[in-house]
């Protein structure tokens, strides 16, 4: 099998495309190998994961009065 050669830039692009997806193609295997040895790309990979995690944690709960306003707007009531 031909061994893929990848640069840090290739890795950065591919990390973003493939994060949390299957990584079994020759390109992905080369990416994984690159990640194990390149500190910069490993940091980049971690930071993209952290970006996603930060946005996941940044949630908003429905304020109580908003539910009442919604029901009134839709002319619905909680007890019918």
């Amino acid at each position, binding site marked *: 099998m031909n061994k893929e050669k990848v640069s840090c830039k290739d890795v950065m692009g591919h990390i973003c495309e493939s994060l949390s997806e299957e990584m079994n193609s020759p390109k992905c295997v080369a990416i994984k190998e690159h990640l194990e040895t390149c500190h910069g790309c490993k940091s980049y990979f971690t930071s993209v994961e*952290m970006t996603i995690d930060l946005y996941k944690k*940044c949630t908003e709960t429905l304020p109580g009065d908003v539910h009442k306003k919604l029901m009134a707007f839709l002319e619905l009531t909680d007890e019918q």
Partner: protein
Amino acid sequence: MNEELLIASAKNGDRKALAELVKNYEQTVYSFAFKVCRNREKAENIMQETFYSMIKSLHQFDGNSKLSTWLYRIVVNHCLMEARKNSRYTFVEQETDESLFDEKYIADWSSLPIKNLETKELRNILDSAIDKLQPEYRVVFTLRDVEEYSTEETAKMLELSVPAVKSRLHRARSFLRNEITKAFQK
């Protein structure tokens, strides 16, 4: 009552079933709208419009997809309409991969004081970054990464091809990550 029965009853004009459906999904819809538009008032309006649209067109819901998937399609459309009123986006489709994946952005985040930030400060950084992202990219990022829908499901909801979702997703991730890095480097 299970969801199928609730939908059938609501289609037959049962207001109690309709209210139940709204209650079951209001948090999901509000939360998604907020994640996309980053504004409570806008999220509230989008939620109202989404459920108004749902009630108006519930008779067209054929049950071939989940109600949640159908609702996401509606809320996405309302989010896009709302977000397009804003023209402050700095991230445009034409931005090249050269600028997105520039090696100057390889900064080690372990040295960034993310954990020391107050929630409000961090939230401002996240809001400001996503605010610059075009709405079409924001909805892909939110559905795929934040709501954890698969690439295929996201593509279906947005009526996009799988490669288009992947392309928007990796650009959105990269852009947000770079914006957050820049905010910490200031």
